[in-house]
């Protein structure tokens, strides 16, 4: 690792200027990915912009528009937040799933998204929940839906000088539930071999709508729109769940690597989608 300079702006505009002045700058939130990658020689930079002191990037707020989660708000604050626990229990479970206790004190779901790993645990659930990304840059602000944020392994839509300010998750509909189910060989401290996020809205024993997304089975987190759409209007039963699970499996494009062979991952997609849907349905039934 070589030397680098560091600044910690306290406003969005301050961050915009710092990034404009240093084209090779990297953005530091919790640092649980960036610092590890720099020490391993996988990322280099001469300038770090620490965004943790910017109020907008630290807020967690619920109002009629839904839940705003600042891009650098650490996981522990998310699962400890009363509105999150009450209205988005699946998100609270997710925040508690990422890393161990020490990591959760630093790591943010915004950082998890920006790191753009195919295996990112937060992203399938954010896609399932219909989250949108608020992005700031010299040209002003823009919004991108989460499923379009990651473009390749380690690559996202952020242009030069842009950064993620916050995530906006719509208010939960009546009769809705969601869940992220991942598979890791160990019981903790591991990278998802595959993962499935699902959200459902139920009405009179039928699916009104559903969204399903997968982790670790494509170059980016994968939104499987057709799997969720197939559930719309169907009765809530094993047959329809299995049909959606099989559609998710068929959409997966996994590779074989040190973490698992491709065919195994493909089969896991059906298992995990079924398990995620089952848990989301339980939550939705409890919500009604």
């Amino acid at each position, binding site marked *: 690792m070589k030397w680098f300079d560091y600044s910690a702006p306290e406003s969005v505009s301050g961050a915009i200027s710092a990034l404009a002045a240093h084209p090779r700058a990297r953005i530091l939130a919790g640092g649980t990915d960036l610092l590890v990658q720099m020490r*391993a020689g996988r990322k280099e930079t001469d300038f770090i912009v620490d965004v943790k002191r910017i109020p907008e990037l630290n807020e967690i707020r619920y109002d009629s528009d839904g839940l705003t989660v600042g891009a650098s708000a650490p996981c522990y604050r998310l699962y400890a937040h009363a509105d999150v626990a009450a209205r988005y229990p699946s998100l609270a479970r997710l925040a508690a799933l990422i890393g161990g206790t020490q990591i959760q004190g630093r790591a943010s779901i915004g950082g998890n998204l920006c790191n753009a790993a195919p295996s990112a645990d937060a992203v399938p659930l954010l896609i399932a929940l219909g989250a949108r990304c608020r992005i700031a840059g010299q040209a002003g602000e823009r919004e991108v839906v989460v499923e379009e944020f990651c473009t390749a392994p380690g690559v996202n839509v952020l242009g030069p000088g842009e950064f993620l300010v916050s995530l906006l998750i719509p208010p939960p509909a009546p009769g809705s539930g969601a869940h992220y189910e991942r598979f890791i*060989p*160990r019981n903790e*401290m591991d*990278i998802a071999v595959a993962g499935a996020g699902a959200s459902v809205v139920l009405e009179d024993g039928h699916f009104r709508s559903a969204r399903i997304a997968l982790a670790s089975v494509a170059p980016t987190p994968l939104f499987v729109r057709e799997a969720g759409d197939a559930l719309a209007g169907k009765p809530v039963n094993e047959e329809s769940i299995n049909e959606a699970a099989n559609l998710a499996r068929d959409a997966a494009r996994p590779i074989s690597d040190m973490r698992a062979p491709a065919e*195994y991952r493909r089969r896991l997609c059906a298992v995990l989608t079924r398990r995620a849907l089952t848990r989301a349905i339980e939550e939705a039934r409890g919500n009604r």
Partner: protein
Amino acid sequence: MSTQEYAVLGTRPVRHDGADKVTGRAIYGADIHLAGLLQGAILRSPHAHARIVRIDTRRAEALPGVKAVVTAADLAVSQDRIVDLGEGDTPLSYLRGNVLASGKVLYKGHAVAAVAAASLHVAEEAASLIDVEYEPLPCVLTTLDAMREDAPILHDGLRTTEFGEKTGRVSNVAEHFRHELGDVSAGFAEADVVVEHEFRTATVHQGYIEPHTATVLWNNDGRILVWCSTQGAFVVRDVTACILDVPVSRVKVTPLEIGGGFGGKIPVYLEPVAALLSKKSGRPVKITMTRRDVFEGTGPTPGSVIRVKMGARKDGRIVAAQAWMAYEAGAYPGAMVGPGAMCVFAAYDIANVVVDGFDVVVNKPSTAAYRAPGATNAAFATESVVDELAEKLGLDPLEFRLKNAAREGTRRADGPKYPRIGCVEVIEAMKNHPHYSAPLEGPNRGRGVAIGFWFNAGLPSSCTLSVNADGSVNLVEGSTDIGGTRTSVAMQAAEVLGIGAEDVRPEVADTDSVGFTAVTGGSRVTFATGWAAYEAAQDVVRQMKERAAKLWETDAASVTLDHGVFRSGDRSMTFRDLAARLGETGGPVTGRGAVNPRSAGGSFSGCIADVQVDPETGKVDVLRFTAVQDAGKAIHPAYVEGQMQGGSAQGIGWALNEEYHMSPDGAMQNASLLDYRMPTALDLPMIDTVIVEVPNPIHPFGVRGVGEANIVPPPATLANAIYHATGVRLRSLPMNPPAVAEAIWSKEG
């Protein structure tokens, strides 16, 4: 069973190093800071097999802050010879070649050059500026590939030794040996049931948490001072002296506290390199490995291919056994196939046995010992076959093992005849444990058992004691403490002296301050260094009796020592009171003990495990685990239990997830603790322990080493449990979720 009454042995005193360890004050290798210290970095090969055409260090040397750069060209050129490392002999050229590659690199991660600089970042940048021109060569990564006639050859000078004779054949097979007992064909002809299978085990690493580190000062007077983390300070001294071609008296090694070794901290990697950098720079130099360095540049334990065939009669007697064992040595000969072959059928009394062993070099890091090296691989094969035989014969798996268990007088195929051993007692303790008869309900659950053996090592140990005026005793020994041995050694001295464990202050000394002591390995420290402490304590007792006799104006032969009280006739005096009067009776009392036991008396162990398998994901959860082991005499039972739990945990990791995941061009893909997947606390159940005590007839207190046999049965235990849960037998390690799931899918068709 052990029946003798002891005052200190068998109790659980607070460990002498406990306060420093739990408060973070203990000094480990990387904690050493000397004035003017430089940081070293090592440039490692990006190729698994390549010829080094040219090394140009000029750009590195020109970088500001760089104080020295070294390559193999800086190593002394001396005649090749055999170096005795205590646990095995190695040619000097292999030791030297592994420290800094010369001519060829033999694995990805092979050290090629090193830099010392004022800061680690400068040293790392300088290392990246060293220009090495390589001519890549085809690599070979598995034993079976390396044994093929057309395989790429690692060492042009390596000629196969076959049955003890040098052949002229150049190959990757360093050695093929055979052990034979009885007539194996006649044995199989007698068998009613024969089971034969091929088993594979992956390359795995010991996974100690503390990376290797060494700090060396090549002093102006020519002395070479070393501070490091090692399992054997004298091995480091001797190997460093050999590689640098200086007399051993020129090297002084101070071993610091060690954060795990398991056999992997016996080899020497950094010390000679740091010494060369110090010589060139005139400053002390520290080199500390990263986790990647540890995985790619230090010895894992061999992967293996093992074919086992066993035959039994209907009456439950095993009548013949045959094994074909090929272990990967890594870059230099010395796969642990020798010990593996000694242990493969060691738990059984079998009349007709043939074992063939092959030591095969491949383009992976040079392998090192790992807790009962070679035996876990072997037991995975044997104990899986034994389980299948028991099932085919309709016998309870423990009854079947008991019927065939090795006993006093049983001859092993490699020669030795057992003295009193505890194999039967271990199996009986398993049978009698409530775990074995507890109901196991629910789908996808199964129970497995397996047993294992490790022969343990004797080897030289030294110990000195000095008596203080307050009645306490200072104990100086040379065994670096990786398992609480300071305390178990001190307790043996305390028992002889009749004082408390807390009255003995043990200290692990540097190589100038204590007599030669072999490595902390082979489960030998509590056995051999404990024995040296026993002898040193006897020496103290003899002298103290003379002092008492002098005070009482009587004959020393009339003085007795019982529970810390000296007596002669109606006179008595405590050890403490007499210690206060040494000055007036002739001055200080010091005792010394030096031993060199030729054998050690082996230890048997056994495990019972319950698992639950998720048939959809192949994930195996260990629900309950019981470990049983013969300790001979458990000096400090809490440490014995700790060893049993540690060996079980490592065995479970080896069984379920750990492996070197290699790319076809020989790069380790998972060289981090994230992806290497050792078990965490959340992956293990509480590991229940049962200590069996069948005293070792050759040790004064009956001690058997307990550090290793406990890792031998777990993989086979879990394989057997998975079979009983799912109906599929896995014959390849690791039995990770994809492997288990694929086996279940194939069964379901």
